[in-house]
């Protein structure tokens, strides 16, 4: 009897599930079955066992039929529903059923720094012939739980992601592969240290060169939160999951300009879900994932044991694939693994440990993989001839810098190093000999040593005192006053607009509040005169997903800005030091990052690397990843981060300066990963805006939550720069900071 009751319970759950996911297409039919089931449940003790059993089997068959029926009509939004359903499999189910044995690390259940992020040291085994081989892996992933509150729906807090990173490093030390499972609607958007955006950026930066194979599987891939553990050598996706730049509801709210608290129109949400191209098959087409793992109809639930078995083989196969790709002796096995797709019994054995050579090959392949991701989703408006010319020019630059830095400068450096060391040794000796005399001299001299300052009257150099007359912001052409937002606190008087945007450089003379200025101001004031040379201007943003109405918006942006993307890349000089600059500016689609911007960014990184110049990312404003490019936008995060990592590893200096508003994806990746980040006063840096925070966490944040001061307090940035001192500070930063291979070192 107990068995039957269990079965009834099971069927009821299945019924609930199907109602939740796709109930509307069956209408009354589901109710009928439900009534039938409850009737049997009521009479379970009266009915003869056989009759009950057959009835239940009938119902089961019926439900299965429904499931298959529903599967045919699944729409993008339904995948979202599936991925979010409490009955869906969770990481815990996978750990129980796919892996033989596991030990959770960094907390258990509620006793956890972040129960939404689970890390476990697990073993996975395969049978080859009669032998059983056991592999050790590090499993990292989000745990949604089956509706438990404390899991926070798999939305990892910053310290959860930090935990993930910590154990990735453990895996790196131990040399075991990492399997990550992405079950997150997005990262928890709070700034408490280590900070949502900053931590994701750190994770990406670390994963870009983590010396072990990483396999990622996506069930619910919510933008930045997903990328925090998603930069993998092989990215798989469950067939019933979704992977998106933003939740369809979020997209709808932005697209429809829905005010806070108002209801979202369901049609709009549905159309957004369709337009964003979030399903597994669409993502495969876009190349943002490598393979799909087929799930049973309507997705795998917590008790689909057969599916877990399949998943186990998929995971082993995927890891094998990654390892074999970098292994020298692997021809046969490589062929076999590739050929036997869907084979249940893996007949090959692959050792998962890598040696030094294999690791460097792995990292190289990883970098290439991400560099090529999202290619072909931007337009190159150069003519054929121009392209060739540019190619030749770039080639020549490469040769030139190789000649100069590699062949000409290297011996010079060796000699210099040797001489330096020699001098150091010599100093010890001379110091020893001369010490008694210097001591004596010091004792005789007066208490206050006369400094060697010349009090000559010179006219101060014009160059750096007043640059304001070169370029005056068009904002200044208005005869009116404006209030400083801090007027109540600091008693600032209203400021006359021509003064404010002219001579005062947009800074309140009383309290130092910075009013926003257009990006052209910076281009004119920050760099040496006539030193700016833009490149790659012809790389243009397009509408890769065919998002409805986006073409017009893009055209409008091009018309307004006379540019083709939200990122400007150029060579420039600051007091004689040449550098490569990337500038995200907010006039073009709010400074959002898409495929074109990502490509321009990595090209700039490469250029800086070749020319051995410092790379400055000045963020005049960015609202995040461009949602209209869907996951193509999202993969710009790992893509650019990998490029940054390559550049820094090559000995470059990467400095990021935030201004105005910098939020979301870019901050959580290629900007946030910079070792040196600064902010202009009165700017805001963060992961998600106040509204998103309010909607996700249910709590209001103070108005200065994202302010540069608070970012500094939390350790996200290294300093706050006054706009008027920007040039000076930048020069000082270039001179004093990092980068072993810079040309001027």
């Amino acid at each position, binding site marked *: 009897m107990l068995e039957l009751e269990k079965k009834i319970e099971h069927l009821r759950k299945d019924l609930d599930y199907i109602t939740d996911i796709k109930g509307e297409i069956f209408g009354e039919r589901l109710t009928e079955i439900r009534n039938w089931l409850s009737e049997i449940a009521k009479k379970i003790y009266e009915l003869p066992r056989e009759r009950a059993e057959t009835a239940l089997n009938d119902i089961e068959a019926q439900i299965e039929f429904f499931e298959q029926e529903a599967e045919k009509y699944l729409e993008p939004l339904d995948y979202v529903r599936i991925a979010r359903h409490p009955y869906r499999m969770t990481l815990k189910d996978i750990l129980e059923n796919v892996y033989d044995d596991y030990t959770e690390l960094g907390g258990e259940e509620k006793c956890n720094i972040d129960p939404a992020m689970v890390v476990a040291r697990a073993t996975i085994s395969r049978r080859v012939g009669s032998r059983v081989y056991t592999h050790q892996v590090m499993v990292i992933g989000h745990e949604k739980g089956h509706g438990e509150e404390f899991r926070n729906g798999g939305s990892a807090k910053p310290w959860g992601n930090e935990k993930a990173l910590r154990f990735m490093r453990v895996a790196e030390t131990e040399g075991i592969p990492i399997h990550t499972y992405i079950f997150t609607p997005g990262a928890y958007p709070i700034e408490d240290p280590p900070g949502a955006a900053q931590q994701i950026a750190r994770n990406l930066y670390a994963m870009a060169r983590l010396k072990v194979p990483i396999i990622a599987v996506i069930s619910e891939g919510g933008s930045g939160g997903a990328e925090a553990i998603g930069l993998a050598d092989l990215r798989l996706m469950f067939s019933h999951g979704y992977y998106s730049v933003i939740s369809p509801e979020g997209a709808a709210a932005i697209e429809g300009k829905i005010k806070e608290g108002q209801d979202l129109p369901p049609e709009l949400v549905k159309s957004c879900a369709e337009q964003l191209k979030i399903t597994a098959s669409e993502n495969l087409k876009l190349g943002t994932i490598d393979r799909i793992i087929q799930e049973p109809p309507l997705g795998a639930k917590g008790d689909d044991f057969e599916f877990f078995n399949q998943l186990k083989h998929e995971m082993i196969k995927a890891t094998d694939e990654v390892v074999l790709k970098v292994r020298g002796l692997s021809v046969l096995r490589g062929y076999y693994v590739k050929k036997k797709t869907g084979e249940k019994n893996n007949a090959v054995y692959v050792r998962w440990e890598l040696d030094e050579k294999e690791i460097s090959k792995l990292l190289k392949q990883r970098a290439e993989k991400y560099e090529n991701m999202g290619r072909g989703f931007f337009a190159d408006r150069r003519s054929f001839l121009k392209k060739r010319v540019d190619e030749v020019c770039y080639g020549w630059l490469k040769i030139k810098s190789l000649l100069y830095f590699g062949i000409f400068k290297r011996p010079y450096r060796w000699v210099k190093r040797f001489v330096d060391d020699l001098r150091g040794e010599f100093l010890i000796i001379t110091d020893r000999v001369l010490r008694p005399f210097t001591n004596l001299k010091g004792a005789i001299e007066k208490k206050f040593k*006369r400094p060697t300052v010349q*009090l000559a*009257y010179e006219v101060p150099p014009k160059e750096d005192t007043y640059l304001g007359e070169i370029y005056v912001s068009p904002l200044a052409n208005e005869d009116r*006053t404006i209030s400083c937002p801090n007027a109540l606190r600091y008693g600032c*008087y209203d400021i*006359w607009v021509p003064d404010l945007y002219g001579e005062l450089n947009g800074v309140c003379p009383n309290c130092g509040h910075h009013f926003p200025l257009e990006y052209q101001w910076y281009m004119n004031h920050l760099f040496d005169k006539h030193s700016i040379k833009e490149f790659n201007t012809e790389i243009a943003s397009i509408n890769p997903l065919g998002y409805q109405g986006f073409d017009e918006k893009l055209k409008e942006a091009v018309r307004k800005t006379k540019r083709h993307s939200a990122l400007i890349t150029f060579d420039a000089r600051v007091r004689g030091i040449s550098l490569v600059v990337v500038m995200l500016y907010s006039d073009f689609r709010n400074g959002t990052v898409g495929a074109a911007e990502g490509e321009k960014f990595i090209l700039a990184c490469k250029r800086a690397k070749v020319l051995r110049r410092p790379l400055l990312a000045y963020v005049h404003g960015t609202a995040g990843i461009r949602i209209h490019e869907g996951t193509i936008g999202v993969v710009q995060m790992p893509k650019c981060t990998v490029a940054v990592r390559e550049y820094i590893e090559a000995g470059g200096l990467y400095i990021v300066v935030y201004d105005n508003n910098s939020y979301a994806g870019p901050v959580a990746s290629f900007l946030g990963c910079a070792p040196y980040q600064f902010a202009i006063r009165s700017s805001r840096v963060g992961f998600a805006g106040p509204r998103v925070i309010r909607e996700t966490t249910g709590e209001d944040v103070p108005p200065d939550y994202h302010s540069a001061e608070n970012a500094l307090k939390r350790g996200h940035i290294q300093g706050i720069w006054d706009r008027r001192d920007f040039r000076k500070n930048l020069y000082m930063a270039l001179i004093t900071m990092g980068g072993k291979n810079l040309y001027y070192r």
Partner: protein
Amino acid sequence: MPKILIANRGEIAIRIMQACKELGLDYIAVYTKEDEASLHVRRAIEERGKESVFRISSYLDPNEFLEVADYTKCDAIHPGYGFLTENYRFARRLAIRKRPLIFIGPRWEVLREFGSKINTKCIAKRLGIPVVPGSDKPIYNEIEAENIALELFHRQWEEGIKRPAILVKASMGSGGMGIEEVTHPIELRRVYRRLRQYVKRQFGDEDVLLERKFPVFNHIEVQLVCSQHGEAVHFGTRNCTIQSVFRQKRIEVAPAFNHNYKYQFDPEEVTKRAIQYSLKMADYVGYDSVGTWEWIVTPEGQLYLLEVNPRIQVESGVSGSITKIRHLPVGVDLVKEQIRIALGEKLGYKQKHISFHGASIEFRLVAEDTKCGFKPWGGTITKFQLPKYDWLKVYTHVPSDRPYSIPSDYDPNLALAIVWGRDIEEAKERGEKFLNEIKIEGKNQEASIVTNIEFLKEKLKKIQMFE
């Protein structure tokens, strides 16, 4: 008839009203809540009626003046002294706004040149004019400041000065504000830091300069009057050595030196040189208003430029009262001249038409405790009577017919008195007589009124001397 907005308070507002009246100009006056009882408000209401007087929130907010000026359709703004007088942005805004207004003062470009003491020193240096030894560039950090200070101390030690000292000054400071003394290098950092903090709050600019302090010196000034048509004349010199510890002038004497005294130098020659230098500099920058060049004279007769005050000064009256143009009676109102010039008139006289007669002393009557570090006194004045003579001119905003409580936002100045005599000795006698005849009573919760009358009497004996 041009209409002038008087953007100031107290006795200068009254002096401007007087000048306007004599020139036949219309004016608008303003006041703040604290100044409701001031005489300048009463006088304006009596002369022009209630609708010509406006209450504003602050004398420092340019928008208030402009809004009132626009509302009343004024043609010009007289900033007086202090407040926005030397704010070149204000002057520039008047000049380039949609409805331009005349700024009664020099061109804004000139104001900008002289706004920073550092820049003033640079111009002087370019023209070969001696300036006080010290820093000549903005100082960015404490180490740099300390090095310069040490250098200045060393020089003084080398000269054998027993108690060397240097001054830390705000580049934008004026009227004695933002200056502190350092007598030992150890103190420097603390003073430097404090001053920067103070300066940033008061002037919104952090530039600070260091200068050597002279233990004994005389502070003299050259009064220039230049027109927009390239004319430039001087109105002689003044001696303003008697100051409070906060370097606010208390007694001014014209002319600068007494020919009966023995000096180590030839006073005639030194004043001539100061005048020459001043005119040279005024010519160089194209000065076009009333202005003062301040100089330091050491007992040996060394001359150093201190700063330039591109405005009408409190003490302009003292020079005016010994000056005679052509055959007119002695006494020229420089405020009137300033307004005339700003409205574009020519001077109408040349240097050779100007002659000086007698000597004049100005006293600034202030409610302050001269024995306790010139601490300002606040409270209510119950009785205030000043003597009346034909050799005496008094400007005050303190009413004598009703109690007056001193506003706390401004300096507790009570009156400005100018005494004239045929020679310096007579002026001194008359000055003493005037000081003795002042009747003033007042009290606050703790004590009755404290004024600087005794201080003035004591210092009167020592004017024009080096000690």
